[in-house]
């Protein structure tokens, strides 16, 4: 990784202190994203990928708390540890929307229903840039056009409920890109859309990546989307990263049993009618009661004795490709 990473997360732990006990949503996560690269974060729901994204945005508030770890962001020449910033402080607000922007899964409820689309984008612009309202409106219309919304000037005046799901997601993207952020975090942006719209949104994001040279942290549970979008991939399970590496390497040669299980459950045209889809049996354990040793042990077909006592760390299995499983490393 010759280029300095844009963002580097080290041993991040985020726990939720609720009446029902302490939920260890993110239990020691480390990764980095280089400028203009796209990192895919994949895992079943409840594995902590959304919480990680929120942590990077500094949106973790009571009852959640960043227990330990660092989130280092390089911007205009210096490094800031987002994990230490006050969620409601002025500094983090200077980063949100300009350095890092975020789009969400539910376009229906993520836009404020009582404000016009245009006004919400103008607000995003004026929060960070001292330009006149008229200039901001012009920029917003350009953005709407850039994200492929037809008749942008009319759409500007409309309310969220007057747009379709896909159109709304495009508006979200326009809003996020309004201050050309260095990193765009996309928290399952395509999950709520039907396939044809999904493809359009993914093409749009790839295009934006090129035009605005923005790094993207793409969170999804859909491996197909990861294949089409990501440069590198990180597989998360039960609050930890079990495997990471370049996308082609992970798809062609998954090392961690969980990743292999995931790969096995994707239907692909190549071997249509030949291979039976394999399912991973069992259920993801609750974050309130993280089992001893490797989290995947109870469901892992190759589980060994050691897997139930000690939890494996990420170890390199190939250049740039690491996995956290005792199958391919000798316990130290």
């Amino acid at each position, binding site marked *: 990784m010759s280029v300095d990473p844009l963002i580097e997360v080290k041993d991040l732990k985020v726990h939720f202190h609720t009446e029902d006990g302490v939920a260890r949503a993110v239990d020691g996560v480390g990764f980095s994203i280089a400028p203009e690269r796209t990192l895919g974060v994949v895992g079943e729901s409840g594995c902590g990928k959304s919480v990680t994204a929120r942590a990077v945005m500094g949106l973790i508030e009571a009852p959640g708390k960043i227990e330990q770890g660092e989130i280092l962001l390089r911007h205009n020449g210096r490094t800031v540890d987002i994990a230490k910033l006050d969620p409601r402080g002025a500094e983090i607000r200077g980063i*949100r929307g300009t350095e890092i922007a975020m789009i*969400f899964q539910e376009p229906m409820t*993520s836009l404020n229903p009582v404000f016009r689309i245009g006004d919400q984008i103008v607000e995003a612009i004026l*929060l960070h840039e001292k330009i006149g309202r008229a200039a901001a409106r012009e920029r917003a219309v350009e953005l709407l056009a850039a994200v492929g919304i037809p008749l942008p000037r009319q759409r500007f005046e409309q*309310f969220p409920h007057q747009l379709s799901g896909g159109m709304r997601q495009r508006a979200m993207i326009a809003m996020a890109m309004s201050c050309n952020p260095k990193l765009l975090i996309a928290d399952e942006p395509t999950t709520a859309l039907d396939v044809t719209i999904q493809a359009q949104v993914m093409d749009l994001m790839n295009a934006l990546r090129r035009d605005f040279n923005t790094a993207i942290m793409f969170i999804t549970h859909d491996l197909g989307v990861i294949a089409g979008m990501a440069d590198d991939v990180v597989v998360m399970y039960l609050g930890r990263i079990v495997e990471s590496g370049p996308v082609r390497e992970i798809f062609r040669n998954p090392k961690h049993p969980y990743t292999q299980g995931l790969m096995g459950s994707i239907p692909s045209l190549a071997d249509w009618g030949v291979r039976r889809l394999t399912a991973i049996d069992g259920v993801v354990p609750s974050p309130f009661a993280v089992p001893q040793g490797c989290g995947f042990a109870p469901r892992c077909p190759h589980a060994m004795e050691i897997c139930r006592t000690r939890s494996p760390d990420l170890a390199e299995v190939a250049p740039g490709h690491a996995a956290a499983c005792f199958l391919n490393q000798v316990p130290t």
Partner: protein
Amino acid sequence: MTRLIIGRLLFMVPAALGIITFLFALFHLIPGDPAIMLAGDNAPRSVVDAIREAYGFDQPLHVQYGRYMAKVLQGDLGISNYSRDPVVNSVIPRIINTAQLAFLSMLFAMIVSLVLGCVSAMYWNRPLDKVVTVVALLGICTPVFVSGLLAIYFFSIYLGWLPISGMSSWRHFILPVITLGAFQAAVLTRMVRSCMVDALGKDYIVTARAKGAPEFLVVFKHALRNALLPIVTLFGLGLGHTLGGSVVTETIFNWPGLGRLMVNSILTRDLPITQGAIFFFAMIFILVNMIVDLVYAWVDPRIRYD
């Protein structure tokens, strides 16, 4: 939108006639004879009959009704049995007094409740929220005559800052507006708090924060605008009640308002005054409700009114 306005204005005519007819029948259904109220308990029947004849009470009902409606259609609401003074002269000034008090106290209630409600929603379930809740609840259960009397004895007599009653200068407005407003503020604060708690839980709040918006913008712009709908309903209701005049506040602060007039006219069976009072009040109430409904559409574009 204009369809809504025209619809409501047109509705006023049948509403007025309906109310007057209903009231006419009601007054003659319930016991109580104005002639006796005028003559007094101990007057002989000859006096009572004389009054009945002089005031036309002895006419058969339909004649009285016909005569009254004829006058109403020409805009004459008749004269009060009691004060023999045209109803319009008694009712109109009273409505203006009550309207002033109603709007000012609701304004006070609105400002106080929005601030307190939002604050207690932001610091949800923390000590500040608990304090605000208890204070609001205490505000609701203190009867106006207790808070009013104590306020007068403390501010007007003990400290001597404010005049006790009447309404000649602005200083006369302070105590009644705060006393009446406090009750409405308490009710509204509770509602603002619960609606704000709802709104702050929604996804677009996370989006707003993700945009880097400061907390007060998130709360007072994004959350509040959405919480406004139920609040507007309650505000409309509160205004309706205070417009009807709070008899107690008006008696305590000697505020010649509509509430006292209406209640007294019912108790003394002064039908023309009751008719006049309720007639004007109905018109204002319908107008107020229309405005509240218009505010609905403006506040929440999802509710189409076409």
